[in-house]
């Protein structure tokens, strides 16, 4: 008995002060990509559909299709791309992730009626539809003592019948089409849909493969898109809290600051 108490005392409290106190991620962390015009004369090959164009032909970055690889930075037809250390990547719309500047449209809070239902208690069901397992690993990490998603009233549940929404990871594999449709239909309305990771948003590294890109039916309306490969747990928490309007006012400036405080 005493060895357990001793161990617990020794471990102490390890929960990250995020989101009240937002430290910095390590120097090499690849966060929000920013593009600096002019377009390069000699663009390198960028291995994804990351560099794109808006409807009126302006070069843009599609952060939803970004794999956050070092190779996607550098000389592109949109300009010079670098990664900031900004972990805030979640958006409420697909279009919100397509950026012509240094910013994306960060996620907006749900409307008041939904916030009244889910604001203090959100139960989510995870469905994996053709992933590599990386995004799920970060979703699991959200439940550990460091990130402790439960302190916000957000928890993952065992059945869609108990859930307020589904979290989809993976590139919509053909073989998961039926199970994903069934799980979504089994989730009682009103329900949310959260797409996590580059695969769920735009196919990820597998884009173009005939085995992926098979969403159920006519597709599902998504309420929150969280880019990343995989998204860092802080990116996930930030997105979820924005959706619920639970992000506390920050004490420090939100910026890719100079201090190199690692956030665990």
């Amino acid at each position: 008995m005493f060895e357990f108490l001793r161990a617990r005392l020794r471990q102490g409290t390890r929960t990250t002060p995020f989101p009240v106190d937002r430290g910095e991620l390590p120097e090499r962390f690849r966060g929000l990509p920013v593009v600096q015009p002019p377009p390069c004369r000699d663009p390198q090959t960028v291995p994804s559909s990351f560099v794109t164009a808006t409807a009126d032909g302006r070069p843009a970055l599609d952060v939803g299709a970004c794999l956050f690889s070092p190779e996607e930075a550098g000389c592109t037809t949109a300009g010079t791309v670098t990664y900031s250390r900004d972990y805030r990547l979640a958006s409420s719309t697909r279009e919100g992730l397509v950026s012509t500047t240094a910013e994306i449209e960060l996620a907006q809070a749900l409307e008041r009626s939904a916030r009244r239902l889910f604001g203090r208690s959100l139960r989510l069901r995870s469905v994996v539809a053709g992933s590599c397992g990386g995004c799920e690993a970060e979703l699991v990490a959200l439940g550990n003592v460091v990130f402790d998603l439960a302190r916000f009233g957000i928890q993952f549940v065992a059945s869609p019948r108990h859930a307020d929404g589904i979290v989809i990871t993976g590139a919509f594999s053909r073989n998961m089409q039926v199970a994903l449709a069934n799980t979504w239909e089994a989730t009682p309305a009103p329900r949310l849909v959260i797409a996590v990771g580059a695969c769920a948003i735009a196919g990820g590294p597998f884009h173009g493969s005939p085995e992926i890109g098979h969403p159920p039916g006519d597709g599902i309306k998504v309420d929150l898109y969280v880019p990343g490969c995989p998204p860092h747990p802080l990116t996930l928490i930030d997105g979820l809290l924005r959706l619920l309007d639970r992000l506390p006012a920050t004490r420090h400036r939100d910026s890719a600051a100079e201090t190199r405080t690692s956030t665990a």
Partner: protein
Amino acid sequence: MSRIPDVGLRNRRAVPLPSLPDEPIDRFRSAILESVRDGCRIVSFFGMPENGEETRLIAVLADDGAGQLAGLTTVVTDRYPALTPDCPQAHAFEREIAEQCAVRPDGHAWLKPLRRHSPDHRPARRAAAVLDPADHPFFCIAGEEVHEVAVGPVHAGIIEPGHFRFQAHGEDVLFLEIMLGYQHRGVESLLESVDGARAVLVAESIAGDTVIGHAGAHCGAIEALARSRKSPRAQTIHGVALELERMANHIGDLGAIAGDIAFQPAAAFFGRMRGECLNLLMTLSGNRYGRGLIRPGGVAFDLPSAMADEMLDRLEALDEELRPVAQLLFSNGSVQARLEGVGAVTRDRCIELGFVGPVARSCEVPRDVRHDHPYGIFRFAHIPVAVAWGGDVHARAMIRWIEIQRSLEFVIDQLNALPRGELRVPCGPLQPDGFVVAMQEGWRGEIAHVVVTDDRGGIRRHKVVDPSFHNWTALAIAMPGNQISDFPLCNKSFNLSYAGHDL
């Protein structure tokens, strides 16, 4: 290996494809059966289309004791006599050949779809598939008191999808059949068609918790075909990342096993410590799983001495924290009672079915690619092979604890003595008509990437074998005789990759 001539095929050493002994099917078959009877093991056995009409079958065998590989090939049309009835470890490979290549292995007792997709490596002018992806009849035990339990593909926790069909008598499991394929994304076809820059990103995403493992094997194959040699510094950084990946996953698994027996302290503490290892990978590569680091010719990021010093401090703190928690777990009587004797795999079945990695090492089969087919830094720095007895959940947990400690020592030693060298050497054109087997000891076991180039040096075939491809069968044979409520615990003690199997 006396049956198959040695053409100098070794881990990460390319040979000309025509140098592989090319035999008629009956001689191909008997050579493999005899080699396996002599103690060799099938690393890979797959097919690729040849001249539009036929399928070339290639088998790679390992003589772990001698550190040698042997390759053998034959050409078939639409069927051949299966190896599986005489060599059970070929079973999954032959189902895969039937599914990918539309070639029937006659006499295979369990010919069902594997990943449930249409043939994507069938000769162009050949018509019908051999298997119908929608037709997967489950093995059933008849009897009034026998019931059937179906679990998945969507599981209760946050976990990849797979289907488990139990035949149970009350709580006792009589039989377990596993059906996968839900995570099939078309990895091999992508690796065979996209350019090199994109291919490494696909390789990193074969299994998201095994980024370094798979990227390392993929890059090893490319480097061998390009006759490119990584510098000592690059090899060491690669080894450090691989062992950090091993530590992160093993620590996470100990936490998950503890969670499944409701031993909350260890579950909570190990869960956090897994994150410490991921954060070390993030410091090095910018990504918690090491994405972006391993590239053909070496590594994309350096490990300067200031960073090494910081990592050493963090590892020292981690070391001090890990030991008391492991002690808390393994010395507890009720933990032992829960873990011992559950989900046991025997040594004989392990050898018969070709299991690899910690699963094999936990039933006294000391297979480890770092030791048997050493490559890179492992030719110079030897990590003792961890072995345990009993093949049960307790043994698999114990193996993980031993390997965590050994990897930690290795990483500390390397950080204290990083050699010089370029981070990345050029990786030029690949040798045409080449053949290479690149093996890596991933944290789940042996990863093999077998690459064949065409006459222009392009990728003709890129076969990926994840350790889970061998080891899913271990879970299926471990469950009978156990309580069905022990399934989550057994599943976690193996912790196999669905994505790695499904590709």
